[in-house]
């Protein structure tokens, strides 16, 4: 019976919680009133009577908490009460809250954005079934460590391998679609019939390719990407089996891919990974061709096969291929790389660098909040001592202090997330369009959890040290001594000083890293690029097979179009060429130099490109010897070539190159000129040997138009295309861009890292400045009396100023030196982004340290001036 009663009493005390709380408060209020009246009766002032009543009875808050602890749900209940109180306290201390929240929200917001990048680019699995089984296979020789696989070798790999479920080839080969009378070039991939099987995603409508499709080269069948089917064919449900006009021929649609199918990407003859391909058509595969390398191999490993086993298997196959075809497969090794690694490539370092920098900012913000919490805790020491005197346990005190940090963390996380959401569109715009998996960078639930977790963890860790110290406060000591001399205060101050020094150290590391990147960029931009991108318009065009079966037909078209372009108003130079600098073009071929023996083990080869007269002039590539191409170099004229300096340096050192004969593709060609080096990739440390052949002598169907003007290059586009269409109304122009856009895009990733690190470094220094300022302000406040006495004893204001400044400088120097020592280690992590500077570049170190120390001085000045201006008499009177 009693048990039942007790149970009901408990129930009442849980469900009637609000009511009971009210009871308690009223009861305590009454108690205090009675106590106060007793005081009044003893003849005390009202205020004094109240004060003594409170003192005698203890803080009412503690009493109610103790009572709450009696409850069944006492713990939760107490926490809620603590949270309520924390909110009240945070609202009371506006300054503290504002700074802590700002530091948290900024750093968490930033890190959330960075996390979206880390998650989208590196962490999220690729959108294929069991993506970890997908690998890329490359041919590798000492000369060309990573080459596409030849079709003949692929044929054997498909036959011989033991570790793959399936392997497939793909290579970009764009097709042209007419809709109305507007020609459009579509991103198209030629794939072996097992490509979709390998990727693990089959067409949603119609059928997959079959071996028969690729055996008969003339069977013109095509599979549509989902986006193209929606936009160009209005989601026609009966599209499968219909005929469409591609490259001026009739093609049959055999399938449509499901929405969201992403191409597997690649760095050579392939658009980026993502929804970047519109059309897929068959690639014939046979044992013949082993000399050309333009097809990419993707494979799906068998379940349970490790990458190591696949690599062993590949080595075995390479030995077999070398034995059977020693000519084309000399020194051949087959390299197997996971698709994920291959896709992200060099950008992995960029992402991790940005993430590490963001992490440092977060750490600094955390240290900042911790410093603020210590300051708060010193201010609360009295209050807490009273609580302890009233018998509050350690956990209770820690909990009440941590509750403030919990509220702070939640608010900071929410603000940070809001900030991240607000900045997300800008952030996505910052990420270069050709960054791997850039399309995956988005604010997801994961990122939201990350933001909140990050903020809570930072805030709670920041609060933990002071909270634990709080709980050790000896009540008697705090209540009876002045806090000024108390050792707890000194400890706390020391801890704060260490935190600030740490902040400065991290900020220095960031500044040095930023300085190194800036130096790299300066060196890169000071480097001779070998061409001038300003005022140049470029676009791609590709001749279809139909109507251009004979080389002369292409040559005639090019001549007509170039003649027309050169008469356009504003055109200073016009040309057609297979390659433009910095576009990542990479077509290589062997050749030989008459009268120069080939080094054993170093076959002479270079990047080849075709160009019409006017190409070097349009790009302002300097001539070093001989002449540029001109009208003499027609199809009927003598065969000629122009080489770059790198080729001369490497294969004809010390010889006079002009007038020599090079044997290229089985024909002798006269070397008529030498041009300056330029780079196919902007980050190339050295130029590769390269040679040019006249476009008229080697007509190619895929070329770039290059036009130079004094004004805005894009204004040339319409007249240039119109002039082209006078010759052939159906020729589409693709990717028209100003050359400066290309050079900018090539540097975009580096610039992103650059820009972000500068921003982070600045933010870090700002946070460190806040830290130093807070620390010194506290010191000045604490030593107020001492300064007063010093001034009274004859110290000048300058002495006092220096005394305080010294404190700030000491912090900055200690942190700065530690940071400068760590910086070279940190710099190693961004080796791929550095150009022409060493990890411990003294100039970067100097600038970074100078900046940090100047910032520290600025931070120290306000408190120092305040101390120097202090009136000694008030300082002493306050005692």
């Amino acid at each position: 019976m009693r048990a039942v009663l007790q149970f009901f009493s408990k129930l009442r005390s849980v469900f009637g919680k609000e009511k009971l709380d009210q009871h308690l408060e009223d009861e305590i209020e009454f108690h205090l009133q009675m106590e106060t009246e007793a005081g009044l009766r003893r003849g005390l002032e009202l205020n004094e009577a109240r004060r003594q009543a409170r003192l005698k009875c203890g803080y009412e808050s503690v009493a109610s908490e103790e009572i709450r602890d009696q409850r069944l749900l006492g713990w939760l209940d107490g926490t809620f009460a603590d949270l309520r109180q924390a909110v009240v306290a945070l609202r009371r201390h506006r300054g503290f809250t504002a700074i802590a929240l700002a530091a948290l929200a900024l750093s968490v917001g930033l890190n959330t954005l960075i996390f979206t990048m880390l998650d989208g680019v590196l962490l999220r699995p690729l959108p294929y079934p069991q993506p970890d089984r997908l690998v890329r296979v490359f041919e590798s020789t000492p000369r060309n460590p990573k080459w596409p696989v030849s079709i003949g070798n692929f044929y054997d790999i498909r036959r011989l391998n033991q570790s793959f479920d399936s392997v497939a080839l793909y290579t970009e080969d764009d097709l042209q679609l007419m809709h109305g009378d507007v020609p459009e070039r579509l991103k198209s991939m030629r794939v072996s019939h097992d490509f979709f099987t390998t990727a693990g995603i089959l067409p949603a409508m119609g059928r997959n390719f079959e071996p028969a499709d690729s055996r008969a080269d003339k069977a013109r069948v095509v599979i549509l990407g989902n986006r193209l089917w929606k936009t160009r064919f209005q989601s026609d449900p009966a599209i499968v089996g219909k005929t469409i006009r591609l490259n001026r021929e009739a093609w049959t649609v055999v399938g449509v891919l499901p929405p969201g199918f992403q191409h597997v990407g690649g760095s050579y003859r392939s658009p980026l990974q993502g929804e970047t391909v519109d059309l897929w058509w068959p690639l014939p595969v046979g044992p013949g061709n082993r000399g050309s390398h333009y097809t990419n191999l993707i494979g799906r490993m068998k379940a349970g096969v490790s990458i190591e086993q696949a690599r062993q298997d590949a080595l075995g196959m390479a030995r077999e291929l070398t034995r059977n075809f020693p000519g084309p497969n000399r020194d051949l090794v087959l390299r197997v790389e996971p698709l994920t690694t291959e896709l992200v490539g060099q950008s992995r370092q960029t992402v991790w660098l940005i993430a590490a920098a963001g992490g440092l900012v977060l750490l600094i913000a955390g240290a900042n909040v911790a410093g603020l919490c210590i300051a708060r805790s010193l201010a609360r020491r009295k209050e807490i001592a009273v609580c302890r005197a009233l018998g509050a346990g350690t956990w209770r005190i820690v909990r009440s202090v941590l509750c403030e940090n919990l509220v702070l963390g939640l608010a900071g996380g929410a603000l940070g997330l809001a900030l991240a959401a607000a900045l997300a569109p800008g952030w996505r715009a910052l990420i270069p369009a050709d960054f791997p998996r850039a399309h995956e960078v988005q604010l997801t639930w994961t990122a939201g959890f990350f933001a909140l977790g990050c903020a809570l963890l930072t805030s709670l860790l920041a609060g933990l040290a002071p909270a634990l110290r709080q709980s050790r406060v000896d009540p008697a000591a705090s209540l009876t001594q002045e806090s000024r001399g108390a050792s707890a205060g000194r400890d706390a101050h020391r801890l704060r000083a260490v935190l600030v020094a740490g902040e400065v150290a991290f900020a220095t590391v960031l500044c040095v890293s930023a300085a190194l990147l800036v130096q790299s960029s300066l060196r890169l931009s000071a480097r001779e690029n070998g061409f001038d991108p300003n005022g140049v318009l470029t676009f791609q065009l590709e001749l279809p097979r139909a109507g251009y079966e004979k080389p002369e037909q292409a040559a005639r078209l090019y001549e007509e179009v170039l003649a027309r372009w050169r008469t356009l108003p504003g055109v200073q130079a016009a040309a057609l060429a297979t390659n433009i600098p910095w576009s990542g073009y990479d077509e290589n071929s062997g050749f030989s130099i008459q009268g120069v023996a080939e080094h054993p083990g170093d076959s002479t080869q270079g990047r080849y490109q075709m160009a019409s007269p006017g190409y070097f002039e349009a790009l302002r590539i300097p001539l070093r010897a001989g002449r540029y191409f001109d009208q003499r170099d027609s199809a009927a004229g003598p065969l000629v070539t122009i080489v770059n300096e790198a080729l001369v340096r490497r294969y004809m050192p010390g010889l006079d190159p002009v007038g020599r004969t090079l044997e290229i593709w089985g024909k002798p060609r006269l070397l008529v000129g030498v041009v300056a080096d330029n780079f196919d990739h902007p980050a190339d440390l050295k130029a590769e040997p390269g040679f040019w052949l006249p476009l008229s002598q080697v007509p190619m169907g895929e070329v770039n138009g290059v036009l130079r003007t004094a004004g805005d290059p894009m204004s040339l586009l319409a007249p240039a295309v119109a002039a082209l269409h006078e010759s052939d109304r159906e020729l589409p122009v693709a990717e028209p861009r100003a050359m400066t856009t290309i050079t900018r895009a090539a540097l975009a990733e580096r610039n992103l890292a650059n820009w972000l690190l500068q921003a982070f470094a600045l933010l870090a220094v700002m946070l460190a400045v806040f830290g130093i300022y807070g620390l010194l302000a506290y010191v000045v406040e604490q030593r107020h009396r001492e300064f007063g006495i010093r001034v009274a004893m004859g110290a000048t204001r300058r002495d006092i100023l220096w005394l305080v400044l010294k404190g700030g400088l000491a912090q900055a120097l200690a942190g700065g030196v530690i940071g400068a020592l760590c910086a070279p280690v940190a710099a190693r992590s961004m080796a791929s982004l550095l150009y022409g500077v060493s990890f411990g570049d003294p100039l970067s170190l100097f600038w970074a340290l100078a900046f940090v120390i100047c910032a520290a001085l600025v931070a120290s000045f306000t408190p120092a001036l305040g101390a120097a201006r202090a009136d000694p008499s008030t300082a002493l009177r306050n005692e």
Partner: protein
Amino acid sequence: MPNREPAPPKAGVLQGTLDLMILKVVASLGPVHGYAIAERLAQVSEGALQLNMGTLYPGLVRLEQRGLLRAAWDQTESNRRARFYSLTPAGRRRLEVERQEWSRMTGIMQRLLDDTI
């Protein structure tokens, strides 16, 4: 900081004795509010026992939850609302048990301390 605050005197209440004290005061004074209980204890102990609220009210709640006390709001002589505590039958029985236990215990202690051998 001219006036230093004295540390509040610690109520050195032996563990377990507080419940007995409260029960006894409530038994002898009839329905009584918390302040009066504290007053009474201070008076009887000639100021040695200054119970603060952090000790007293948790004790009252504990006893109420164990069904030994019941509480009701009522008017005081000075026309204020206060919460008056009185013993439940269970509380009465408990007080009796505790009282006997206490006497037995103190008797033992007494004999032990007086032993001059």
